[in-house]
């Protein structure tokens, strides 16, 4: 059974087109991430799902129903806002109870739900405080508690972690994931942070300019990005893009790479599929961890190290290939110092190629 379906939704203000035909479908219990840079339309889409804004055209289905003409309160959804949107004049208990009061939930039931939710989120000692007296993380929990008390068919999270500091953000991320596992609810989660997207989502919709660039599982999106934008947006550090020409050498199809002082031809597995593009320019996308240190005797490209960035478990090596800066993620012990040379090889089974004109992935 589909939990949420969005069919050809558009949104425009006069000549400004915010959303240009969005199609999304997720199943019950799935965790959908809407990710993209600011201004991509993800928050508008979220508001349309919530019913806080109306789509210009298209349909929104929640469960079995078309909800275009259903008020937010009747859509059986709950939402956690970036600013938490806690009612400043009410204490935590009242904040959580407000929606239940509005819906006429009996007092006794309210108390039970508040007790259960606050215990789950470890905010039971804060129930009599006002939002102003809470820390950012506590407010975040209260906002979630308010949503949980609703027990809705669909949870909406609008950048819920972006106002927290880095450490708290990681903690809360884990908690949200655990909560999802435990409650098996359907969640739509908006973020501009691709790490959150990768760690939390069952399905990710990468958006830009009001269009879904790619919709799929985190693995699909990471490994087979559909275009240059998605490839560059997902992953940290970003994917390296190297311009090169497709060529044939000794019956193998591949590209030639030049570093400062070295050059070699590398073959592409399944390169034969690109036979009709021989001689044309392509963009080679390779993630930093797909660049490895060549073992003794293995073929490798001798690259000059410009800069190193140790992160602890790995060290980032900055070098240059085909005139472009390239980052490689290597084991700290394998790293050389700036000015020295390292022999690097690409994991050609995982690299992706893009058409420079259409920016779409070739294979």
């Amino acid at each position, binding site marked *: 059974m589909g939990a949420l379906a969005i069919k050809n939704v558009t949104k425009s203000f006069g000549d400004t087109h915010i959303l240009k035909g969005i199609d999304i479908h997720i199943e019950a219990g799935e965790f959908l991430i809407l990710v993209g840079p600011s201004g991509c339309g993800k928050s508008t889409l979220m508001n349309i799902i*919530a019913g*806080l804004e109306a789509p210009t055209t298209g349909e929104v289905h929640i469960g079995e129903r078309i909800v275009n003409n259903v008020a937010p*309160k009747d859509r059986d*959804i709950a939402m956690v*806002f970036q600013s938490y949107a806690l*009612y400043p*004049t*009410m204490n935590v208990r009242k904040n959580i109870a407000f*929606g239940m009061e509005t819906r006429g939930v009996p007092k006794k039931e309210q108390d039970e739900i508040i007790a259960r939710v606050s215990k789950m989120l470890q905010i039971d000692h804060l129930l009599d405080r006002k939002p102003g007296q809470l820390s950012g993380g506590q407010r975040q929990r209260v906002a979630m508690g*308010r949503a949980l008390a609703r027990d809705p068919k669909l949870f909406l999270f609008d950048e819920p972690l972006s106002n927290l500091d880095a450490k708290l953000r990681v903690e809360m991320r884990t908690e949200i994931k655990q909560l999802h596992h435990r409650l098996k609810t359907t969640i739509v989660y908006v973020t501009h942070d691709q790490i959150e997207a990768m760690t939390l989502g069952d399905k990710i919709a990468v958006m830009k300019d009001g269009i879904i660039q790619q919709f799929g599982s985190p693995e699909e999106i990471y490994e087979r990005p559909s275009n240059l934008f998605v490839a560059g947006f997902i992953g940290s550090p970003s994917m390296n893009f190297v311009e090169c020409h497709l060529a044939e050498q000794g019956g193998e199809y591949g590209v030639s790479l030049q570093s400062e002082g070295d050059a070699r031809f590398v073959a592409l597995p399944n390169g034969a599929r690109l036979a009709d593009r021989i001689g044309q320019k392509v963009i080679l996308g390779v993630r930093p961890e797909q660049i490895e240190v060549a073992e003794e005797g293995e073929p490798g490209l001798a690259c000059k190290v410009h800069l190193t960035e140790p992160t602890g478990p790995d060290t980032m090596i900055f070098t240059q290939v085909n005139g472009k800066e390239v980052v490689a993620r290597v084991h700290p012990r394998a790293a050389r110092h700036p000015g020295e040379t390292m022999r690097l090889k690409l994991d050609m089974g995982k690299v992706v190629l893009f058409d420079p004109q259409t920016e779409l992935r070739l294979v």
Partner: protein
Amino acid sequence: MDNQNKLWRVALYAVLVYAAVYYLLPLYIMATTSVKSMDEIRAGNLIALPMSITFDAWGKAWATACTGVECGGLSRYFWNSVQMVIPAVLISTTLGAINGYVLSKWRFRGSELTFALILFGVFIPFQVVLLPMAQTLGWFGMARSVAGLVFVHVVFGIASTTLFFRNYYVGIPDELIKAARLDGAGFWRIFFKVVLPMSTPIVMVVLIWQFTQIWNDFLFGVVFSSGDSQPITVGLNNLANTSTSVKEYNVDMAAAIIAALPTIIVYVLAGKYFVRGLTAGAVKG
């Protein structure tokens, strides 16, 4: 450094106190004159302290001075003003709050234009509306009644109250309203349960503002009221103004202070809320 700092503080306080004197001087003159005797006023320096203090003028201004064929002092007018000010302030503030709420949180197509149109009303010179208003009140049968006066003050108070509230409510995050809507609350429930409890600072500002405006109004008061419903400014004017008879300045001044007392008290007691309310966002945009 320390000495220089001290000097700077002394200069600072000197300027502040000097300014305070400038602001207080008219009130000082009014207060001292009101407790002088007429002989002393005729003879002496206006700025000088009174040689002997008498409160006769106060009693006269309140209870026995003539303001027409009646000689009952200002007391009657005072209560007229109270009767007029309270409903006028409450109604205009309520309307302003609701308008501000709609114009900031429930925008619809044309709501911005509506706001601009209402706002322009702040700037209309009131002399322009006297006659058409009189005619309209006549049609409604509200001419020369307290209700008519209340109505006029409400109509021409809406613009500023709406502006105050709207600018304050713009500062309330829209997400709060969204959250409340998702919680199932409707237009009124959001207003009363979420927005209004957050409005204390601006409500104070608007109440104080409207109270002073309406209490001090003379033009509407003199034109839209008649004998037994005239507000205190008209009473004061009648008491202090005379074309061809003897002036009693001490009584005039006592009457002026009596007329001003409620607003002064409001400012002294609630002035900090006024500044606090302005701080809380009334001055934005």
